[in-house]
């Protein structure tokens, strides 16, 4: 099976490149891979890269909020990159852009 998420670290930046449709079913698997890496590397920034995510429902919003909380535990901020127009529509509806410790750069 292909990986849902590819994790890499460089200079205090932990990047999780998501590689699947993001729903309740996949979100659980993904967070189980990201969280241990956050505690292991204790990065300054956790980058969630959505470039290869072609679908996401509100489970993805839950995943983002949850990772922001986990990152805060090690003092890290979260940055979202690579969001398509379709994904942005849901991000806007959710209002998560206003959460502190979370930045959205398309």
């Amino acid at each position, binding site marked *: 099976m292909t990986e849902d998420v590819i994790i890499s670290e460089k200079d205090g930046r932990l990047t999780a490149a998501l590689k699947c449709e993001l729903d309740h079913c996949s979100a659980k698997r993904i967070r189980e891979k990201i969280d241990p890496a956050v505690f292991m590397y204790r990065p300054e920034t956790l980058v969630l890269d959505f470039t290869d995510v072609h679908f996401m429902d*509100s489970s993805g919003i839950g995943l983002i909020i949850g990772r922001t909380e986990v990152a805060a535990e090690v003092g890290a901020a979260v940055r979202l990159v690579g969001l398509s127009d379709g994904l942005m529509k849901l991000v806007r*509806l959710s209002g998560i852009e206003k959460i502190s410790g979370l930045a959205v750069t398309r």
Partner: protein
Amino acid sequence: MKKIINEMKLRLPAVGVNEAVARSCICAFVAELNPTVEELGDLRLAVSEAVTNCIVHAYRDSLPTDRNANIYISVRLYDSREVSVEISDNGCGIEDVAKAREPMYTSTVGCERCGMGFLVMESFMDSLSVKSTPGKGTTVLMRKIFKP
């Protein structure tokens, strides 16, 4: 009077993999109406939310092996470029539908649900009705009219 031009019924076990299955089936089915990418994206999202709710909430007290934990989906296409999607379950039902529909309300704790499911269905479809009987199950009916 609008006329039905096609109809599809699906019964799927309420398990995680069927979130993606339901989305794909419904999007393939409405293709004959040639919706825009954005319209199709809206529909895909609304379907995902309704199906996920059946899986996460409706059968929360049943065992994963329960053969009666099913999601029933019925989709109709009309000559008015309208699609109606009915998604129901025979699960636990909802005590207070008005409260459940409030944005950001979730009954779950610790599983990273954000309470946006009904908000998404309402925002991205043209209409939403939710009927539920505690102990019997829930039926969600959504409609969307694609642009000419």
